[in-house]
């Protein structure tokens, strides 16, 4: 009765809007890059890219910086993700916030903060000088380490999200078992935890690699001419508008290069991993499973613990210090770019100096008195509100459309989540090329459409997690008591879905408000969003004015996070977990 053919059609019609949007505003723009890139004198165009040492250097730089940033991010994030996956209560909440708050802060703001940290008169040099460690400020900015550092910082949240979902499924007793069998901690980690978590590592590394490959804000602000990356060249090619076909060809180059590296990486990962799919082992016979297990590990002679040589007390003491020390360093690293902007924004000086020579409200006054900043904020608010409504409608319809079971749900969900897996610069490029033809560039509607595409998957994930946590028996019970389907939706499903939708709405609003890439590509003259204005402001003048705007954006983020937490904690504790798991793209 519940699964009749007619209802399936109804559900399809519920799914239609989302898939129509993805087709028209996501797939089509991406596909539009191809004819643009290969139209006309395509050979000449690609020869210009691959034949010129300039672009070969850019490609190599892009891959090199992305690999460096991805590797460091993995190493830094893995312990954090492990601790987060084991933590509960207040500690879990704090660790979750530590990851969540930077994730929800604009990339532009986080990158800008590094100018105030690494500059000649920034936090690091200022501190070292006043401590007398150095006599001359160190040249930290406009170097590869600066770019990598900023990329690592913005990648950590995404990497942690990707890892935590897998790590949470690992039974902690497995380490105990390894210990009893005589494995050293290092061996237990490398031999057991890492192979089991390889899926999470793989998806995390893929996401981060794609993200860093496409980055253009960090190299533009923090690098010099030797750290030019592909995304940056594409952006400036679009900004100067020189040659769309060439920009499209660069976009193809970026996508292909990224794909090759990701494929190479997954081949390597497959080679190294002993258990490919720890979470989703097919229900086979135990004997078959046993055959898949690498028994070589078991047959190896038990290594005698070498730690006998050390005094156990010191060993234990040291081991106990490792975790807090690590947490301390990581928290400082994650939080400093957010915190440093606060004193800078109250600076009385004309430039970014740390510590500020004096404090004043002048920059906040300047912003609030500037019609341009106010207009930009209002534009962003309007776009955010529209994006929020659009994504909520689509996410609700899609969740209801999928229902509890749907044929090909896995494949269809992958399509729904696909905007998360495409480098944002490539999507923004495609959107620019398509929208330009139909007059949507530099219009609010154009940016709203792009934001809806980019943010809808995140809202869908939150809504879907909430929906699947609703007990199906409740609807059944209501139905057996005589409630009509519409009444069930009104009185049972919708109220239970509401917290998820509220969180989704907040996220959508915030992500749209902070979104930089599509905004920078798609806005120009008449529509200036806040991130676009900030981007121009930082490029033309690194005054504390930009810091003050950043602090305001940060304030909005914090307010939203607090409201979100109030909603979550007020309703159910579990919802927070679904929120933390939200930005986990499927790869």
């Amino acid at each position, binding site marked *: 009765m519940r699964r009749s053919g*007619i*209802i399936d059609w*109804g559900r399809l*019609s*519920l799914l239609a*809007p989302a898939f129509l949007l993805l087709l028209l505003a996501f797939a089509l723009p991406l596909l539009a890059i191809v004819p643009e890139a290969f139209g006309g004198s395509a050979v000449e165009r690609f020869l210009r890219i691959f034949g*010129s*040492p*300039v672009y070969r*250097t*850019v490609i190599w730089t892009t891959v090199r910086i992305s690999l460096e940033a991805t590797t460091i991010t993995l190493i830094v994030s893995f312990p954090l993700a492990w601790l987060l996956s084991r933590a509960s209560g207040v500690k879990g909440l704090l660790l979750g916030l530590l990851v969540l708050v930077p994730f929800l802060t604009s990339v532009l703001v986080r990158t800008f903060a590094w*100018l105030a940290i690494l*500059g*000649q*008169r920034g936090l690091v040099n200022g501190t070292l000088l006043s401590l007398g460690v150095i006599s001359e*400020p160190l*040249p930290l*900015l*406009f170097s590869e380490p600066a770019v990598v550092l900023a990329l690592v910082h913005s990648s950590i949240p995404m990497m942690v999200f990707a890892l935590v979902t897998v790590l949470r499924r690992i039974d902690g007793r497995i380490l105990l078992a390894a210990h009893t069998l005589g494995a050293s901690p290092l061996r237990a980690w490398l031999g057991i935890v890492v192979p089991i978590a390889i899926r999470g590592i793989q998806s995390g590394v893929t996401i981060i690699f794609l993200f860093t490959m496409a980055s253009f804000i960090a190299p533009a602000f923090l690098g*010099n*001419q*030797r750290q*030019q990356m592909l995304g940056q060249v594409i952006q*400036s090619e679009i*900004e*100067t*508008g*020189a*040659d*769309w076909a060439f920009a499209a060809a660069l976009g193809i180059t970026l996508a292909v290069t990224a794909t090759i590296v990701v494929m190479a990486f997954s081949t390597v990962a497959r080679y190294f991993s002993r258990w490919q799919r720890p979470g989703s082992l097919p229900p086979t016979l135990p004997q078959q499973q046993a055959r898949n297990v690498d028994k070589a590990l078991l047959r190896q002679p038990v290594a005698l613990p070498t730690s006998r040589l050390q005094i156990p007390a010191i060993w234990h003491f040291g081991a106990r210090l490792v975790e807090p020390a690590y947490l301390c360093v990581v928290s400082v690293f994650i939080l400093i770019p957010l915190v440093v902007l606060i004193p800078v924004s109250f600076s009385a000086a*004309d*430039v970014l100096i740390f510590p500020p020579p004096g404090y004043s409200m002048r920059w906040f006054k300047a912003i609030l008195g500037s019609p341009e900043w106010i207009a930009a904020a209002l534009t962003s608010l*309007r776009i955010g*509100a*529209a994006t929020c*409504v*659009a994504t*909520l*409608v689509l996410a*609700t*319809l899609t969740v*209801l459309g999928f229902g509890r079971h749907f044929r090909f749900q896995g494949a269809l969900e992958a399509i729904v989540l696909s905007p998360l897996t495409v480098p944002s610069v490539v999507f923004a490029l495609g959107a620019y090329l398509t929208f*330009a033809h139909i*007059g949507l560039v*530099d219009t*609010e*509607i154009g940016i*709203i459409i792009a934001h809806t595409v980019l943010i809808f998957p995140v809202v869908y994930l939150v809504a879907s997690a909430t929906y699947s946590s609703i007990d199906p028996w409740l609807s059944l019970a209501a139905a057996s008591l005589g409630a*009509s*389907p*519409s009444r069930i*939706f*009104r009185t049972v499903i919708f109220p239970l879905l509401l917290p998820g939708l509220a969180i989704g709405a907040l996220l959508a609003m915030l992500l749209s408000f902070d979104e930089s890439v599509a905004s920078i590509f798609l806005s*120009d*003259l008449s529509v200036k969003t806040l991130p676009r204005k900030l981007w*121009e402001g930082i*490029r*033309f*003048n*690194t005054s504390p004015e930009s810091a003050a705007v950043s602090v305001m954006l940060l304030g909005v983020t914090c307010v939203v996070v607090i409201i979100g937490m109030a909603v979550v904690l007020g309703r159910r504790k579990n919802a927070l977990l679904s929120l933390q798991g939200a930005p986990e793209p499927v790869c």
Partner: protein
Amino acid sequence: MTKNRLYMGVSAALLAAASITFFAKSAPAADPAEVVVTSYGGSFQDAQKKAFFDTYAKATGAKVTGTTGSGYAKVKAMVESGNVTWDVVSAESSAHANEVKDELLQPLDYSVIKADGIPAELRTKYGVGYIKFGMNLAWSKDKFPSGLTPAQFFDPAVKARRAVPLEPEYTLEFALLADGVKPAELYPLDVDRALKVYGRIKDQIVAYKGAADTQALIQQGEVDLAYIPNGRVNDAIKAGAKWAYGWDASVSDTEWWVVMKGAPHAAEAMKFINFAVQPEQQAELTRQIPYGPTNVDALKLLDPAVAKDLPSYPDNAKLGAVLDSKWWNENRESVKTRWSTYIMQ
């Protein structure tokens, strides 16, 4: 079916809400006269805003939208795509020459634009030269209290972070002048020699995208030396940077007002240019930022002390060269490729 209808009801309601948000702002307004002016951002544009944009808006009631990103490539792309949103563009002489060559501009209407004080060679069919600016060697006084010669800029023994433009124009001229080439013999540029000169200090170079970026670099103390437009460094000094600059090995150039072909507000554009080239406005720009006015009547309105900061001041002019936009017009493609390849490695 009821369930279905309900979903549709809900979605219709939400869509209605969405469309209200969409179209809330798009109510058509009766637009007054409007003109879009494109320049380079930063302190130069701030000065233009004060001297031209705001005063023009005040005088005529027209809406002046200032935007950034002026450049030959963008002008070309806009005209070729047919999607022209800019009216008036401020163009360097090489960009201006290219735009003229590619027929991207509209002939100026000299029945509207009246500026007899501007020399005839700066009032061409497609453009009015409205200021002269210099690219100058500037240094941090903290680091180099006794100043610095162009030769020292290229001396690897002098340790400093040096900012030069990412583009080859002015940049190559600077190296050749510093290496002893006489201004009169500068063109055709000896590119090999210029690159060799840069080779001495390549690892100490930070190449910057636009002049506005360098001003930020100077104010932040990120670099110790820079080759930068004289107005920008002057503005940085005014804003408190302990810097100085000299005219030795400077390269001066003219900035032009042009109107894009197919400009949406062409008639207003002519009126704006006419307003901006009048002596009073030109003098006001120079008061804001020391770029030299082309209108001789404007010079009379200025404090004589200001004139010493201008590229046209004889003592300044004889130390430097004038950019040859014709040479760049013919050689830009190949030189630009060589320079970019060189500086990125």
